[in-house]
């Protein structure tokens, strides 16, 4: 039996660190796939690991990460939100409209977008958590309804949001793009929430067995309701960032298919669709996997339809490895 001294508990030795690293790899087999993917892309293109390209990948993946973290928590708690693509569009349009046509300050524009996202999340949460309707049906319905609303309210493209609003998508904080800083903050907050707060543990408990969680005194409605609101808010924030980066939004196309991309990242990251299992580190790996795949295939100049096929095959391979990995991952 290995004994751990008090000193090793405070400052882990090399052996402990190595063992911890191996455990992390065992629990997140996608890490191996991602490493292989990066190696292949670097060897094939010679420019994949260039700092400029890595910055581009991180910036592109930021919006995905911002939504993937709260969505992962929602899925861990046994729920689902398929409306995030449309919520992203509505958030982007609201922020763009406030910053552009209404000439409001960037803060007001972003707060307005967040309020709209929170409202969509609250409707989802109310219907799913308090009225007991199927999250799949409700959020699928909201996906269409919110998109229709966005197109009705903003039938024409919006653009020209001003330099102040452009800060959100284009500024650098300590040399790092602002969206990446926001995404990092969301990832850290999500990880800390899951690991160190009682509500974080409740999320797992609700996902594993709602009845048992309820009988243990966990509020099985309020927690997922709050997660729906946070997910909606995060989607709107991602929308505001995209609007800032592009300085334009189109109601009909902004965020289309985004819900499936986010869900793919979450599931690739080892979050169980049935609830009760998952980690923020896994979600981060899922997000990076998708970001690297898209970027690498473009760098390799793979023709369009081959890209589609390669993306599909890589996704299935990643998912299979995650599934056939050790039980500790699930």
């Amino acid at each position, binding site marked *: 039996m290995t004994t751990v001294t008090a000193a090793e508990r405070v400052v882990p030795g090399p052996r402990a660190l190595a063992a911890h690293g191996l455990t992390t790899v065992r629990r997140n087999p996608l890490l191996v796939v991602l490493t292989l993917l990066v190696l292949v892309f670097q060897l094939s293109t010679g420019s994949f690991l260039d700092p400029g390209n890595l910055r581009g990948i991180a910036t*592109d993946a930021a919006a995905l990460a911002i939504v993937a973290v709260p969505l992962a928590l929602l899925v861990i708690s046994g729920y689902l939100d398929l409306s995030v693509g449309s919520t992203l569009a509505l958030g982007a349009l609201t922020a763009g409209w406030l910053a552009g046509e209404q000439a409001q300050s960037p803060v007001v524009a972003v707060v307005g977008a967040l309020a709209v996202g929170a409202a969509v999340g609250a409707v989802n949460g109310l219907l799913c958590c308090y009225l007991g309707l199927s999250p799949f049906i409700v959020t699928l319905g909201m996906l269409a309804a919110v998109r229709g609303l966005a197109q009705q309210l903003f039938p024409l493209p919006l653009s020209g949001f001003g330099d102040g609003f452009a800060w959100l998508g284009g500024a650098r904080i300590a040399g790092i793009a602002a969206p990446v800083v926001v995404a990092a903050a969301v990832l850290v907050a999500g990880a800390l929430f899951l690991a160190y707060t009682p509500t974080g543990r409740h999320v797992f408990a609700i996902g594993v067995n709602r009845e048992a969680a309820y009988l243990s005194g966990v509020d099985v409605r309020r927690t997922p309701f709050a997660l729906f609101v946070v997910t909606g808010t995060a989607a709107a924030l991602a929308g505001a960032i995209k609007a800032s980066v592009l300085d334009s939004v189109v109601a009909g196309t902004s965020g289309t298919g985004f819900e499936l991309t986010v869900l793919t990242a979450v599931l690739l990251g080892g979050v169980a669709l049935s609830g009760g299992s998952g980690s923020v580190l896994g979600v981060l790996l899922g997000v990076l996997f998708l970001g690297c795949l898209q970027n690498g295939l473009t760098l390799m100049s793979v023709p369009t339809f081959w890209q589609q096929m390669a993306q599909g095959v890589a996704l299935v391979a990643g998912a299979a490895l995650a599934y056939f990995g050790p039980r500790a991952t699930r």
Partner: protein
Amino acid sequence: MTRRPLSVTPASRRQFLAWSAGALTATGLAATGCSAPESSSGSAKAAGASPSAKKLTQIGLDYPFTQIPLYSTLVKLSTAAAKKHDVELLTTSDASNPDTQASNLNTWVARKTQAIVSFPMVFEATESIAKAALDAGLIWVTYGGTLENQSADIRFSFRESGTLLGESAAKWADEELNGKGKIAFLVDNTIELGRERTKGMIDAFTKLAPGVDVVAQEQAIDPDTGLSKSNALLAKHPDLNIILGITDAAAYGGFKALQQAGRKNGDRKTFVGGQDGSAPSLLAIKQGTFYRASSALAPLDISNAIVDVPLAVAAGKAKPSVEVPVKLIQRGDTAEIDALLAQNG
């Protein structure tokens, strides 16, 4: 003490279902009340009559790509144009889905919508529906192409749109880059319209500027994809000079990628161009940035054609088909840009 832990109480669930049923019934009644009586009486008269003998009171515009901004503009302008002739404009919601489009068109044929203007997603599959419409004495106008069974058509030269843009970029490359440089095309190979534009754009450019190195042809029709693809391309080719897009939306994503990579707005060695004449791109051209050209269609010309062609068929005019012109918009075309922006607004 035990409580029902997870779901709503039976009473509240019943209440919710009752409210939902009430709301659905009310919506259904309202919808029926809004549309049925007028159209059914009108269609009963129209049935069996020859198209040329009709007094046209209804035109159905079946445009499947409701997600693109042009759709809203077309509906607004066509509705106004139709109103001038006391004609009601109906629309479908096809959600860019050929099956849904076929179903909606069959419904219109069954309820004898007097004139149908349809942009078929799959031309071959729409042929039988068009035939059924003609057999029922309805007017069928094909939008964006030609069918065997039709009363008339509204055509666009999609290839011409791409050709104009390709020629413009090639001319610029010859003048500003001495015929050398690097170009990336943002293309669409998924639908006929996209393939035609792509071919026109690439053929024209590569023929006139053979010295420019084609570094990529990437699928992108929206700004987000245009941005991420261009970001990747710029990592590999930071000296990329030209990005041409199958749509203005995709090209605008490329424009933002170049800006974020540090390219100055007035950079003399950079050219971005797209197709459609969408507002953000037109504004960028007007401001004198390196977004330099757009092959634009005037929404007002299209909207007028949507109304005028069926009316001309109903009036028995010979050769009522029209080809909507496409025009290259560049820096300096201020009046045209303003006119297009006004139509879009």
